[in-house]
Structures are given as C-alpha cells and as structure tokens.
C-alpha cells in the first residue's frame, strides 16, 4: 500500500518539478506577502490570531497530487484516510477566502511538501488529527478549547472536531443550526450530565441574543426530562418566532427569548418544575409583563377558577395563543373556535353542526357568533351559573333583536320582545331584574333552541318546528298534542298568527275604554250636579 503511494507521489513530484521550472515565481511571490501580520480581531475584541509563523504557499504543488488522487494513507492502527483534498472546500473556507489565504503548509508541516513525504508518525487517524490540529494554535489563541481538554476518558476535543479541517468556516458564516448540530454530534440529547460537566467552565461568553439561544433550540430533538418522567421538546421553530405577533413586525419592538425566559446563558439553571405542565404554568406568567389586563381577566375567568381548584389542564394564555408562534387569534374568525376546540372538542363538534357553526366554518360568515361572542374572551364566565342562565336571553337578543343585523337574513326581531311578553320570558326577566342569581326552571332561549347545536327553526331534520311537542315535553312531560299551540311561536298576535289572542285583545281594547268612558260620563254628570247644587244652594242662602 505504502509502495503504491510512493510511486504515485514520485510521479507527481516529477510533474511538480517541471511545473516549478516553469512557474518558480509563484513561491517567491507568495512568500513575499505580508502574511497575516495584520491581526484580525474577534467580535469580542480579544485577538483571534497570532501572526502566522509558517505561511508557505506551496499549494499549487500540493494540489498537483492531492486534488485528484485515489491514494489513501494507511495508519498502523489499520485505519485509512483518503489523500484527496477538495480544493473547492479549501478555497471556500475561512482560510481560503479573503486577501490572504492560508496555504497547505500553514498547517501541514512545511518540510513535508517535498516528495517523497516523510512517513507519518501517527499511530491512528486520531493521533494524526491531534498532531495536525496543534497547528491551529499557531494563529488562534483558542478562546474556548480549555473546556474541551481532559474530558472524562482522557479525550480532548480538537479544534478540527468542531470547526472542521479544510472546510473550516468563518464563525460569522457558520449557521447556528450547524453549530448546534456539531455540538450534538457528541452531546446527544438526554446526556445532560456529561454536557454540563463539559461546559461547566463556561462555553460561551457572548452576549445572549436570539441566535445565541436558537443555536441550540432550533435543533429538533433535544428534550427536557422532568421529574415526573415526561419530556418536553425544547425545539423552537425560528420562522415561527420571526413571524409571530412578537416577531420582527411588532410595533413595540421584537420580543426576545430573554423577555420571557430567565435562562439566559448556557449552561441553564436547573428547571424547578416537576412536569411540563408545571413549567408552562410558571412560564405563562411572563405574559402578564405586557398583557396584565388580559392576564388578570383570565385569572377571574372560569379557566382561572379551575386552575385555582387545582385543575392544571385549565387553559392559560399560551394554551390558546401559543407560546413561540403567537398569531392574531381571530384571523380568520373561525380560528377562535378552532382554538377552543383544542380542549372542548365535543362541544365544538356540536357547534359545528349548528346554524351558527355551519355558517362560520363553511362560509366564514362575519355575523354568526363564534365561541367567544357568547362566552367572552378573557372574562369567560361559568356558563352553568344561574346568572348566566337568567342573562342568556339578553345574550341571544343582543343579535336577534338587532334589526339591522337580522334584516340581512330575513329573521324576525320580534323574538326577544315576544319572549319577554310571554310567561317564560316575563319570569326570567323579573328574575334578572330582581334576583339574578336565583335558580329558575323557566325556559330560556337555549332550553328550546339548543345550546351549541342550535338549528334553524324550520330545519328539515331537527328544526324546532318539527319537534315542538317533544321540546315542550322536556319541561312539561304530560304535554299532549294540543299543548304546543299554547305557545305563540314568537309572533305578535294577529289575525294570521294567534287570532284568538288577537280577538280577545281587540275585545278588551274596545270594552275597557267604552266602560271607562261610560262610567266616567255618569260620574262626571253626578259631579256636575253636586257642584251646581252647592253653588245654587250657596246663592240661595246668600239671597
């Protein structure tokens, strides 16, 4: 094997010799350059480079062989390494771009460029990497390599382990995702103990920014393992962050990770929460920093109360709005109901079949109520209270008594007034005014029309008109076939609708004034006589 390499190198050297004869100027020109004396500075201000002690730009000669070869280097350990080097990688690398590219011999021992090369002393690839990567320190002061020395097991992480060798990229051009992937190549998810040990000395000292956090957190995979055995992915989609309402286009300025998260630098402080839910419940309180009003309202809501009772699954800000991907909650309007669906799926399914839900979900109707139009947004009241029940007709009436709104759909706005005028509605209205927290079994709108599955009254399958008797029997179990006619069906009495009521009303509309006028006439004639008699009697006594 070695013999074959030697022959190849001998051949290459011949070519190189011929080449140098022609282009000997290359060597002197490159050597005459000022090298990397003009020290570059790192972002943090500390010198990143020392002067390059061994720039030897014999690249052309090296490339003659190493660019296009099938040769391999065999180590005593039995490992092999291709001798081929991709020149494009080198040229595009941090060391290849710019005005002063490094040459091969900047790292590879300068006197070895002559062919035949001296034998490689390394026992294995790793040995070889250790030897060669020592060259990095010729230029770099290696600001963080200390934390990678003398790892448990005696290993040392080399510069090239993370940065690569020929393809080394400038830090600024090194995508955060790739950096993290590099780390994760060794530091597998879950292997926290080792990672913390390794990084105990402080891996990074850069100011913390989005990219700093995203360097790790944009990597799918890593999870937090909580005491209860559950895990939580720490992945954050950078696109979500950027396009969320807190992102770049936010009028108040972009919200950064640190605005909500305390864990600023790596390594993070241990998370106290024992479960992912507990972590969420701690973390969502950050919303109150800016949204204190809504936050307080939510605390007073049915969700806040349930949380207070210990129902930890009760919705908090982030459950509805999302955490990293916060989008306008009501665009489109159906998004609201979809959000509620996350926890209230059976109710949602009911609602979706209703006349309101169908219009919202299939036609994006702007007028029908979605969940929050009836239940409120952050001040979501308990809908099972007596108060909610007694106030519910007003809730329905807020749309159904609005003639401008109902006109578009040819729906009568008499429904509310006729309800209030009837026995059920009168009682409920009185309760509302006098004792709104009393329990009442008097029918409210939703007792007859349904709660979430409200259908159009003339719905051919399950409209209330088809099932009126069954509807009555829910409260009046002894009701018989005639009984539903006792209900005036939200019509003002007329000859067409409820003619009997209309005629009775008409009768009294005539009889009452007629009686009052007649009796009033009799009374006034009597008064007239008495006044007249009194005056004439006085006159009589005076005369």
């Amino acid at each position, binding site marked *: 094997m070695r013999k074959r390499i030697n022959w190849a190198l001998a051949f290459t050297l011949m070519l190189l010799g011929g080449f140098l004869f022609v282009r000997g100027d290359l060597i002197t020109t490159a050597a005459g350059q000022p090298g990397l004396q003009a020290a570059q500075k790192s972002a943090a201000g500390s010198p990143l480079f020392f002067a390059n002690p061994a720039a030897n730009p014999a690249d052309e000669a090296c490339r003659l062989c190493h660019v296009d070869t099938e040769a391999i280097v065999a180590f005593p350990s039995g490992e092999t390494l291709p001798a081929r080097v991709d020149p494009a990688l080198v040229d595009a690398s941090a060391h290849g771009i710019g005005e002063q590219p490094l040459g091969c011999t900047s790292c590879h021992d300068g006197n070895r460029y002559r062919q035949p090369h001296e034998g490689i002393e390394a026992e294995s690839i790793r040995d070889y990497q250790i030897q060669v990567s020592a060259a990095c320190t010729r230029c770099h002061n290696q600001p963080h390599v200390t934390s990678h020395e003398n790892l448990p097991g005696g290993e040392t992480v080399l510069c090239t382990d993370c940065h690569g060798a020929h393809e080394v990229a400038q830090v600024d051009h090194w995508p955060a995702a790739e950096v993290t992937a590099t780390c994760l190549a060794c530091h597998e998810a879950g292997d926290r103990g080792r990672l913390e040990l390794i990084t105990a000395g402080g891996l990074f000292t850069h100011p913390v920014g989005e990219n700093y956090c995203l360097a790790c957190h944009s990597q799918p995979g890593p999870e937090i393992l909580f005491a209860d055995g559950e895990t939580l992915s720490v992945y954050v989609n950078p696109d979500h962050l950027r396009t969320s309402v807190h992102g770049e286009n936010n009028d108040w300025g972009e919200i950064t990770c640190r605005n909500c998260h305390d864990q600023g630098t790596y390594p993070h402080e241990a998370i106290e929460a024992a479960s992912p839910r507990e972590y969420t419940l701690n973390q969502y309180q950050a919303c109150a920093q800016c949204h204190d009003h809504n936050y307080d309202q939510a605390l007073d809501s049915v969700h806040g109360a349930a949380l207070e009772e210990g129902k930890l*699954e009760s919705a908090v800000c982030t459950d509805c709005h999302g955490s990293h991907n916060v989008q306008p909650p009501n665009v489109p309007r159906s998004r609201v109901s*979809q*959000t509620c*669906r*996350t*926890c*209230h*799926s*059976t*109710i949602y399914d009911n609602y979706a079949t209703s006349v309101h839900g169908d219009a919202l979900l299939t036609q994006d109707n702007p007028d029908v109520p979605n969940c929050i139009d009836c239940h409120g947004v952050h001040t979501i009241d308990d809908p*099972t209270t007596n108060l909610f029940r007694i106030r519910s007709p007003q809730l329905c009436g807020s749309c159904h008594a609005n003639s401008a709104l109902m006109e578009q759909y040819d729906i009568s706005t008499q429904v509310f007034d006729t309800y*209030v005028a009837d*026995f059920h509605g*009168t*009682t409920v*209205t*009185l*309760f509302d*005014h*006098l*004792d709104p927290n*009393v329990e009442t*079994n*008097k029918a409210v709108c939703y*007792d007859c029309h349904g709660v979430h599955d409200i259908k159009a009254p003339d719905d051919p399958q399950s409209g209330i008109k088809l099932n009126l008797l069954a509807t009555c029997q*829910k*409260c*009046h*179990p*002894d*009701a*018989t076939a*005639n*009984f539903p*006619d*006792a*209900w*005036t069906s939200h019509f003002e*009495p007329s000859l067409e609708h*409820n*003619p*009997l*009521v209309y*005629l*009775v*009303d008409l009768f*009294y509309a005539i*009889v*009452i004034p007629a*009686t*009052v006028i007649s*009796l*009033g006439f*009799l*009374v006034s*004639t*009597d008064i*007239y*006589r008495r006044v*007249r008699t009194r005056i004439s009697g006085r006159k009589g006594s005076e005369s």
Partner: protein
Amino acid sequence: MSQKPEAYPRFRLGARIEHAILMISFTVLAVTGLPQKYAAAGWAEWTIALFGGIEMIRIIHRVAAFVLTVGSVYHLFTSAYRSLVKRERMQMIPTRKDLDDLIATVRHNLGFQPHPPRMAKFNFGEKFEYWAVVWGTAIMALTGFVLWNPLAIARILPGSIIPAAKAAHGGEAVLAVAAILIWHLYSVLIKDVNPSMFTGKMSRRQMEEEHALELERLDRGESPWPELELEVLQRRRVLFAIGSVLIGGIALAFVIWAITFEETAITTIPRATIEAFSPLLTPAP
C-alpha cells in the same frame, strides 16, 4: 207622624262578611295580578319585589284566588238558600225600570228634571256592579283555571285557548279594576261616604236619595227581609241542608280539584352534564 228612625237596616251580617271576603281577595288579586300583567314597568317590579319576588307573588295571587272562589261558592249557596228556602224575591234581576232610572238620573244630574228617580233597595248602579262582579269573577275563574292547569286544558281544548285565556285574564282584570276605581269607589267613598256595607245600616238621607222606594216600604213598617213561619222555615231548612251538604261537598271538591289539578305544570329538567374538557388527541390545525 211617628218619629222616623235615622238609620235603616240594609245588609245582613252574611252579606257584609261576603263583601269583606270579596273586598280583601279582590284587592289582593289586583295588587298581585296587575304587576304580573305589566311586569316590565318599574312600579310592577317594585311591587313584585315588595311581595317577595315573582314566585311568591304568584302563590299569594293563587291563595287569594282560592279565597275568592270559596267566597263565590258561598255566595251561590246563600243565594240559593234565600231563593229556595226563604223564597225571597230576587231583587238583583235588572228590570226595565233600571234603564228608566239610569236615564232619569242622567237627566236629573244635567238639570233636565228636578227630582232624582225613586229607586228600590238596589238601584241600577248597584245592579250593574253586582252583575259586573258576577261576570268578572266567572271570566277570571275560568281563565285563571286555564292558566293554572294548561296541560289539562290542552288535553281537551285547542292549545290556543291558553294564550287567549291569558289575554282575557289580563284584560278583564284591567276592566274590573277600572270599574271598581271609577264607579264603586266614587259611589261609596267620594260622592258620599257610605259605610252601610260595614255597619249594615244606611242613613235616612242616603236612603231618600238613592233608595226612596225602599225607604217608603220600610217606613210603612214592612220588614227589610221576608219573614217566614218558623215551622215552614225549618222544614225547608232540612231539605236545603241535605241538598247543600251534597252540592257543597261537590263544589268544595271541585274547587280543591281545580287548584290542585296539576301537581306542577312544569318539571325541572335535570341538569345535563356535558364533559366540557374533551381535548383533541392531536392539536387542531
């Protein structure tokens, strides 16, 4: 001419008791009923609150209705007793003379004739009131029964009777209260304070003015009420007692049946329990 008494007997104790029952129950019914008809008005709410809320005022209204109904049944019995046992002339039956008296009264009031008409024990105005009460009570009892027992009514009659009964109950109530306020209260309190329904006696002056014929009759020494021989009376009483116990028992049973016909018109639906928390297995899009 002998000394004429200052006051004349007008109402027996039984009639005064009947009136008291009617007066109290009617007032309670009006005060507890009208706020229900005009529930949207502020005064109505105030009144309802005063009586302890809508449920309580409905109970009071029904208790008063029961009292009024029992009083009405009692009136039917005393009327029957008086016409069957005592064979009294039914003085409340309107006659042609009542119409003439009405016209004469108006003419007198307007100054077209010098003297008021000479009227019997019950004048046209009192007969009007009596029959108005009979009519009104009948309407209110019937429609009230319908409202009290809507399910039973709908079993035998069209359901549309029920809202019509509600309309009639309210309309008749207004009519009755208006008649009482305008006519009755004017006649017995404003025009002239007439306490005869409480004292049982009427002053000579008032008798002269409104019941000249009755005054004449009493002055002739006739009894205010027909008197029978005790033997005849007792025989008839036995018959009446048997009849009245039978009929009275049936009537009382009917009243009790009427007010307890339906144990409850409505049943409270047991609260439906919906599992509000039903998270999706996979988050919604």
